[in-house]
């Protein structure tokens, strides 16, 4: 297979310039040493969630053991330490996404909550009957349903920019759908079902030329690509800690200050107020305004540690290594007769989605699992994408920088086994 050889050469050339020792990296992740059904685990479900390095586990553990307390409240020593660590984590996330102010970062439960927050508060104050919200056909359910709910509540209309058969947004259609009724556009940076990398800055430019603010769903981008909200030009950006090697239950919303500071609160409670009487409550400035109640303190600190870990390796190094692996996986899988790749965009990251003739993805998932290989089989919370390609589900292998070529080889053998059973 000449294609594979070419990839290998290209990869070893870049590896010489930027040594990336995957074996050493793997030692940072205790879960990668697990065995499943008597086989060494091959974890290829990173788009669903990622494994955690020791530094993240330690950061969470240390928070609870060494300086845990509530934040922003006490004058005592522990409260001060916990508050410092929590705010330090916010600054780390700020640096990670390239925001100009730490106050533009709101800690949320995950990308889903970030989108719901914007749909609910920005939406409630800016979207009215007759207005439009624009999304794309390749969105995850989390970037569809909150906008649908907003449209139901306000009488606005949800418009959907179509994708082509490679899994790329048809930009001309997207541009045509932007009009003076459009109040917000919400687009995914990297598709979780197809791996497509959208031309986000171009799409933001198109929207901004119509004065339409843009929310970018960065859940899949944050662990794989260098994110810079200033360069993207987006108005909101969301990501999830657990998809970028951090803890579950924590994520971040970036909001441009002039928008964030004029948005009404999301939830009411402690922490988000300046003063409360029974007749009137004054709300705090962002980010506190959007962080009602005791936040996920240890989670935020863990997410900060995940940012440190990622930056320690370097997102550019990660992106380069993963691209080589993705090309290897794509070539190897597409060389198998009967395998159909779903999503063949020119620019992709991390995800290979495929079907096998005669074998349902659910059965493929079970057979691969018995080989110790963890993949996702299903609609990946992107049913409209499945509908577009006329499949009920796909098998999705999603990569991280700790994956290796020999793991792809085992996936390929697993697929061959599926074909033996279902011939």
């Amino acid at each position, binding site marked *: 297979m000449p294609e594979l050889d070419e990839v290998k050469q290209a990869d070893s050339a870049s590896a010489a310039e930027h040594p990336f020792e995957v074996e050493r990296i793997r030692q940072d992740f205790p879960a990668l040493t697990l065995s499943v059904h008597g086989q060494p685990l091959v974890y290829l479900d990173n788009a669903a969630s990622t494994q955690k390095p020791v530094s993240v586990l330690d950061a969470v553990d240390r928070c609870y053991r060494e300086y845990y307390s509530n934040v922003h409240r006490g004058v005592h020593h522990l409260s001060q330490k916990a508050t410092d660590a929590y705010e330090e984590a916010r600054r780390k996330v700020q640096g990670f996404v390239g925001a100009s102010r730490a106050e533009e970062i709101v800690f949320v439960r995950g990308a889903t909550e970030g989108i719901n927050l914007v749909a609910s508060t920005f939406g409630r104050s800016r979207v009215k009957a007759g207005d439009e919200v624009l999304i794309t056909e390749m969105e995850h359910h989390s970037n569809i349903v909150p906008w649908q709910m907003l449209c139901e509540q306000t009488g606005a209309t949800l418009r959907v920019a179509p994708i082509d058969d490679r899994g790329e947004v048809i930009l001309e259609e997207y541009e045509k759908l932007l009009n003076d009724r459009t109040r917000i556009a919400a687009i995914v940076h990297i598709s979780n079902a197809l791996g497509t990398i959208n031309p986000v800055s171009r799409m933001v430019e198109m929207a901004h030329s119509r004065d339409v603010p843009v929310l970018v769903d960065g859940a899949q981008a944050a662990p794989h690509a260098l994110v810079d909200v200033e360069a993207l030009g987006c108005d909101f950006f969301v990501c999830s800690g657990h998809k970028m090697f951090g803890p579950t239950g924590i994520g971040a919303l970036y909001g441009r200050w002039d928008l964030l500071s004029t948005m009404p609160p999301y939830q009411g409670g402690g922490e988000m107020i300046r003063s409360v009487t029974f007749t009137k409550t004054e709300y705090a400035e962002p980010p506190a305004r959007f962080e009602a109640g005791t936040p996920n303190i240890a989670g935020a600190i863990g997410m900060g540690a995940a940012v440190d870990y990622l930056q320690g390796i370097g997102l550019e190094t990660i992106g380069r290594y993963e691209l080589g692996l993705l090309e290897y996986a794509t070539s190897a899988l597409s060389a198998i007769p009967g395998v159909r790749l779903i999503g063949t965009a020119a620019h992709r990251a991390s995800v290979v989605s495929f079907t096998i003739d*005669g*074998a*349902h*993805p*659910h*059965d493929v998932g*079970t*057979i691969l699992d*018995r080989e110790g290989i963890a993949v996702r*089989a*299903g*609609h990946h919370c992107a*049913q409209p994408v*499945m509908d577009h390609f006329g499949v*009920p*589900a796909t098998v999705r292998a999603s990569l991280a920088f700790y994956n290796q070529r020999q793991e792809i080889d085992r996936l390929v053998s697993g697929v061959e086994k599926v074909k033996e*059973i*279902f011939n």
Partner: protein
Amino acid sequence: MSELMDLYQEVILDHNKHPRNFGQIEHADHCAHGDNPLCGDQLTLYLKMDGNRVAEVRFEGQGCAISTASASILTEVVQGKTLEQVESLFESFHELLTGDPSVVAEVGPELGKLAVFAGVREFPVRVKCATLAWHTLKAAIADEDAAATTE
């Protein structure tokens, strides 16, 4: 690997590839739709009754090998059975998939063809695939009761 072979027995693979009684029944007495939102399996079951007995069952839809084979075999085994027999068969089938192995040995013989699904026991997440058609059949039957009450 042997557990996989137990799961994907020849009979199951054959019914998956060539599902029996696949399609609609025109003027069905009852029909119900079933789906498993987790994996996207979905099927529609059509039922024709002859008094208290199942005269004919057909199905259409798409799903994994286990759910397709289960629906296909269901259409064969319930034909001619009374509603009580269908109910008891489903109970035994469910027991086969989820129950205590020693009890299963006792209920085994009456299951007949359904015994090929014994391997599903080792794959708890696939039990729903095997029972989808049966739950849908129950829904179709319940719908008949509801219609009868309205009249």
